[in-house]
């Protein structure tokens, strides 16, 4: 992925500030206008997803943490970001189909589906055939689905560190029931929080710190030219 140019990085800072203020005032239209302006200035879809929307979401989390916004405001801000992602998906150019099926899901108990959504969109726009299951997918349901329609790759997301055990157990049970051959990728903040711990290593095929990394790893795992 090309690194954003300095000009683009500057543009992103400005766009993020505008976007965040739109989120905080609950102004959907203003938020979408920021995205449109970004596209108009030639900022890439990728940069808008990561540097503007995802960064703003991190800021919203921090503001909640500091009790500077309420839970209601946080929900509203997140809803706006979901819309912005959908809008960007519309505008983005989709790579030709590569005929690889990817299942994207949040582990059981994980309610934060924004990072998973980002990854799903990135994979989809890269030409993967993405099935997005969203937040809090009960592990038995996930296993049923994997058995019924085996994908070429499973991408699991866990954000909150307390969901790490849920991730562990999900991977364990999937390996038991579905087998060793299904490639599993894992992403999310829970992973970084848990990496310092002495938890036994997950039986997975790769991790990614962000959506572009996830796409690159997925290509690698499935033997696709990047």
């Amino acid at each position, binding site marked *: 992925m090309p690194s954003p140019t300095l000009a683009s990085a500057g543009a992103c800072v400005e766009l993020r500030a505008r976007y965040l203020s739109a989120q905080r005032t609950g102004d959907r239209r203003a938020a979408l206008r920021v995205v449109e302006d970004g596209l108009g200035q030639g900022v890439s879809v990728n940069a808008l997803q990561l540097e503007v929307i995802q960064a703003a979401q991190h800021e919203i989390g921090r503001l909640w943490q500091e009790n500077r916004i309420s839970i209601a405001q946080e929900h509203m801000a*997140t809803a706006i970001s979901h819309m912005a992602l959908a809008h960007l*998906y519309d505008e983005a150019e989709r790579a030709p189909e590569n005929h690889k099926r990817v299942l994207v899901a949040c582990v059981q108990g994980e309610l934060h589906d924004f990072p998973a*959504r980002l990854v799903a969109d990135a994979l989809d726009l890269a030409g993967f055939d993405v099935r997005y299951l969203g937040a809090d997918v009960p592990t038995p349901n996930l296993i049923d689905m994997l058995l019924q329609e085996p994908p070429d790759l499973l991408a699991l997301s866990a954000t909150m560190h307390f969901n790490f055990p849920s991730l562990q157990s999900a991977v364990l049970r999937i390996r038991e029931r579905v087998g060793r051959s299904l490639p599993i990728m894992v992403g999310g903040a829970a992973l970084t929080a848990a990496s310092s711990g002495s938890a036994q290593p997950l039986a997975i095929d790769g991790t990614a710190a962000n959506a572009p990394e996830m796409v690159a790893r997925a290509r690698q795992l499935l033997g696709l030219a990047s």
Partner: protein
Amino acid sequence: MSAELAQRWNEQSRELALTCDARGVIVEQDARAARILHSRVGSSLRELIVPGSEAKLDALLAQAGSGAVDGWELALIAFGKPATLSICACPGDSDRIHLYALVLPDDYGETVRHLNEAMSEVLSLHREISRQKKELESANTRLTAAYRDLDESNKGVLSLHAELADKADTLRRTAEVKGRMIANVSHEFRTPLHTILGLSKLLLDASDGPLTEEQRTQVRFIRTSAEELTSLVNDMLDLSKAESGKAVLRPERFTATALFASLRGQLRPLAPSANAVELRFEEPAADIHFDTDQGKVAQILRNLVSNALKFTERGEVAVTVQVQHGQAEFRVRDTGIGIGSQHFDTIFEEFGQIEGPMQARVKGTGLGLPLSRKLAELLGGTLLVDSAPGEGSTFTLTVPLCHPEVRELTTLESRPIDPSKAPVLVVEDDRKTIFIYEKYLAMAGFQVVPARNVEDAHRLLEKVHPAAIVLDIMLEGESSWTFLSQVKQSPRTKDIPVLVVTVTNKEQKARALGADEFWLKPVDQDRLLRKLRSIAKPGMTAKVLVIDDDSKARYLMRKYLEHGPYQLLEASDGLTGIRCAREERPHVILLDFLLQEMTAFDVLDDLKGDPRTRGIPVVIITSQLLDASDRQRLAAETEAILSKDSLSRELAINRIRDALQKAGVGKPTQQVSGAPDHG
């Protein structure tokens, strides 16, 4: 407030108050706190925290230690499940913190969660639609590109097609040249061959002195070779004619008996009685009548029989014929060496003879069977073989009893004149050309009345008054010019437009003899139709002249005939009627018996006395009872006598139709029943 009520409020309350130390250990709490949080003094708030909110609890404790905090949202386990509490806090003595909290109703949270889920689903759907839209767009782009490609390849195909057409044209020309060359070469061969045959005959006849036996043998060899070459040349000539479609069909009527009789005579020399092979013609039980080209049927049978005799060493060759489904099936069956089924196709190919000792011994041109099959096709029939080696062969020639072209022409000739169509007399000796005229003119509302020769044309003109005549001047040399001048001189026919069509430019002569149009062949069909239309409207109506001094009677007749294919001419007195009849030449005249100044007899005398009006049928209409002598006299000169009392629309039309039919216009009609005739 009573203690009871106070206790009740306490039990219902979603508020609580407690005091904890800087680390969050509860040092004091009210009853509501114990009830809501299930906490006890000495336990830590950390134990109550919902995972993920630990940092926020720390922040609260840190901030509340130094100053009042309001509306701090914190997720704790309340009533045994995660809930959001809104907390006010302020610092107390000895690093203690006083907390006052309100449990926010959990259904708000639930609602938000549901809404989030719903939104997530909507957005997933949105992506699905967006993706499909993109796919459609890219499919559209691909299709546009494919269309462009197709368009280009279509152009390629078109040019390829044109190239093919060129090639086909070249091939056709080559084939034509080949055919012409064969025909010419064959002709050139024939003359010297005839000389050789003639001279060798003279030598053998010893007219110029005797030959030695050795010389005779040599001359006989020369003669046999020349005969074989002659038959090869003849076959080649016939075949090239049949292939180029130039073979002329000469249909005639003949019977199977007569055909067999002549064949027997011709073929007897090939199977001398001393031979071990018997040639038999089996006469059919009932004689069969043909109307096709006898010469060609005979040629095919001769060929088959002579082949059969060549390849049969003993036994017999039998020729039979029977009728099956309107077709004659001739069979030539032999007891000869037979043919393997793998050779069935080869033997019908030119020079496609089979290798074998017998075949090598027997001489043939290699053209007999292909020519026979071509001729069979020309007759509208087929030639098939059935055989097995050692079991003899059977060749079956199937031909229609009546040649299709003959049948078609007979149909054309024998059909009645359709009053709704304008008849066009086509004088043309070529059947195919007649069919072409028929094809074009029938669609345009004309009826072709075919005449194959001038005699037919004269005969037909007696019966039919055509709207136009199309005359092919090549027909029988001078006689067609004579026909033209006769048509133009006869008062009965001189007003019929004649279109002269010919291959030689004799326009001056044609015009001098009275031709209305002169065209060189080939005739352009559009031009022909335009011309004919300008002469006679298709669906020409029959002209009916009513001579009656009673305007009411004329009105009545007009009403009777107004929707039929009739053009009504009216005359209110006899003299006008006669003049009108001469000028307009109606197809039929309806004459009132009693006119004011003339009788019907006077009018009839005038009409019958003039060649221009003599042929026009007259129907008498009367309101009077006629006496027997009048009736007798009228009946001799008119078509019908109708009584005005019993006159009806149907009757009038029936009589007019009959009269038209008699005049050669129109077809027989069913009688409309009801009113009486002639009385």
